[in-house]
């Protein structure tokens, strides 16, 4: 990178320092006198409410007002171990390991799918049915063609099925349901993989790093874009 990077440790130190400052809106009324700057008019004690109910200063921790620093991510997962095994196998068909990065299941993309389809809300429930139905369909199709469940197929056998369902606009009518399932899983796997460190490294996302300065794009990039 062309610019000087402020070490993350330094940035965190800055944040820690900032966090130790008096916290706006978090002080109980009793603390006012101590916090009031020198020269400010003293506040008569009688003016304080006798029993002030606590002011809500932090998150409720629900969906409308979640704790952004320590998010709660837990709700019961709905997929079975067998369904998860099928999804892991399918996820790895979409994102297999190669020389640059691991496979989707190796970074837990199928667990993200489970988180997604188990989440509260109508759209997640719709996806739950699509994923569940899709997994069942996939295994039925595997049995029909190869007399085995999807996880026990060879790579070539899996590919034969995936080729029929990998693109809804071109899938035959009898594969439309399978193709819609594959589309959903591909998108979820893409999110589940590329939001991890391994995924970000693979595509070369190098941001989210504090820097003291901001410079033009690297010379090589400008050259390739004809920007000189």
């Amino acid at each position, binding site marked *: 990178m062309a610019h000087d990077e402020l070490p993350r440790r330094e*940035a965190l130190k800055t944040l820690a320092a900032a966090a130790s400052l008096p916290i706006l809106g978090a*002080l109980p009324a009793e603390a006012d006198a101590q916090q009031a700057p020198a020269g*400010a008019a003293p506040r008569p004690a009688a003016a304080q409410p006798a029993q002030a109910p606590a002011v809500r200063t932090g998150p409720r921790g629900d969906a*409308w007002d979640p704790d952004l620093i320590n998010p709660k*991510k837990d709700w019961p997962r709905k997929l079975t171990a067998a369904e998860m095994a099928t999804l892991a196998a399918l996820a790895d068909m979409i994102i297999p390991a190669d020389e640059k990065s691991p496979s989707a299941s190796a970074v837990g993309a199928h667990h993200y799918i489970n988180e997604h389809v188990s989440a509260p809300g109508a759209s997640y429930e719709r996806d739950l049915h699509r994923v569940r139905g899709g997994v069942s369909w996939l295994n039925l199709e595997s049995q029909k063609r190869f007399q085995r469940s999807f996880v026990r197929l060879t790579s070539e056998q899996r590919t034969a099925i995936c080729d029929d369902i990998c693109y809804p606009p071109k899938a035959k009518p009898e594969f439309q349901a399978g193709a819609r399932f594959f589309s959903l899983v591909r998108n979820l796997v893409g999110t589940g993989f590329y*939001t991890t460190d391994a995924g970000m490294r693979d595509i070369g996302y190098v941001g989210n790093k*504090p820097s003291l300065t901001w410079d033009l794009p690297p010379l090589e990039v400008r050259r390739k874009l004809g920007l000189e």
Partner: protein
Amino acid sequence: MIQSSPKSQTTYDAIIVGSGAGGGMAAYQLAVNGLKVLLLEAGRSYDPVRETPMFKLPREAPLRGAGSREKPFGFYDATVDGGWEVPGEPYTNAPGTDFRWWRARMLGGRTNHWGRISLRMGEYDFKPKTRDGLGADWPLAYQDLAPYYDRTEMLIGVYGGDDDLENTPRSSPGVLQPPPAPRAVELLTRKHAAPMGIPVIPAHLAIMTQRQDANRLPKLLHPGNPLAQRVLRDSMLQRQACFYATPCGNGCSIKANFQSTTVLLPPALATGNVDLVPDAMVREVTIGRDGKATGVHYIDKRTRTDRHVSARIVVLAASAAETARILLNSKSARFPNGVSNSSGLVGKYLMDTVGAGIGGQIPALEGLPPYNNDGASGMHMYVPWWLYKEQLAGKLGFARGYHIEFGGGRGQPGNGSFNFLEGVTEGAYGKAYKEAARRYYGSYVWFDGRGEMIPNEDSFCEIDPEVVDQWGIPVLRFTWKWSDHELKQAVHMQQTFAQIIEAMGGKVQGTVQTDGNKAIAKGGQIIHEVGTCRMGDDPRTSVLNPYCQSWDVKNLFVTDGAPFVSNADKNPTLSILALAWRTTDYILDQLSKREIG
């Protein structure tokens, strides 16, 4: 500084309703000038230092940070307890209307989530009717607000260039901070847009690229006011410059960008002159026998009880629509149609910004070596409106302009960032999918137009006669209609963006609409609603006088977006801030002359 109920025996000099841009600025200015201020906020208290998820990545959030009904802009968006829906606080739409009303029920209001885009209105923008015969003129000119723009920009910290283009004013020398160097996509866009006559220049954003001069600026902004100088200096010393990481929309715990909660409220509270009461939902302005405002009623949300507080003056800054709601709900024998509504115009001439966009895939951006594209989170460059002459000559078929916000390139991967791969690869999976991700990542650009809407008779809010919210307060009902000017403008936006994308050698994604109704965002979706209490020279045709003072109630003022007479393509926050500062100067002047209070 915070307390849950105001001092029972004290009458305040000023009650300010709302703690966002307009309320925060009013509280700051009045407090540093010695007024005792009660600041009421309908949402909860919020501490950006403690609550801001800096550096957090999507994978640390539930559902990889996905947007939801409760968090429309993603899990980490700083807006807590708000959005287009607020539980228990509905609004309604008249038949045929689908208006969306964004609210941020939190300390600092919408300033915790905004684009930080800080463009000045220009000379034409204050006198649109004089120029093209449509809408209405402001009762002030650019020259009246220019000094307040300068001061506001110095106070909050704005980066930008010194271009001086038609109706795109530049700041006085030394006011702005230097803009950050352009990103790759911005440079590439400039290269291809310039030959089309489309200017790509440094954007103006309320983000600091360097620390403020805490010794010089407070003296410059508050000459002869030691209290103001001291609290502002202390506040400026606590603000860091941008470190070019983490999204502004998450909030900024190092205080590098403008949020009311990091920039205006800390020095206001440090004066010791402000009592801040959150969870206080104001429902009514009360009027005394002399016809002057005596205070406000609010619902203490925690105890669900109604309270009344008194002050010499009342300043409403609850947001354009909420301010109209309060006024319309303040009915009495003297004011049967609501307070400050003798003109019948409260709630009328509601405006939002015209929005339309389109994206493209640019082969030249494929396969570049990794480079950091984060920057200052928001735009480094933008396109101001450039067709003033053609427009005035009637060549465009719509009367007002738009600016272009744009970006793209190697952004942080988030939820759904790679959904495009299925289409572009026609269904790739396996090795081909991974290779496509490497090839296409960072090769997409987007363009969004943000255009002026002309106020019309068919866009307004009023009180719904049948529905109340969970606090028992009658709710707003919206009626909305775009005119042909906005619809044609939206089509022009998409056509222009498609031309730019094609000039860049790219492929337009999606359909370029020829029907404006299909191109334009819904009313309220751009979250720039202004204009429900317009100011003017004539009490029969305006709600407020040229100083945002109620024509009907002398000690009642409005400092949010409600006074706007027009809604230029320039994002409103900077103008709300500058106008609020000007209004507080007038309030102080009137108080000193004993004209009010």
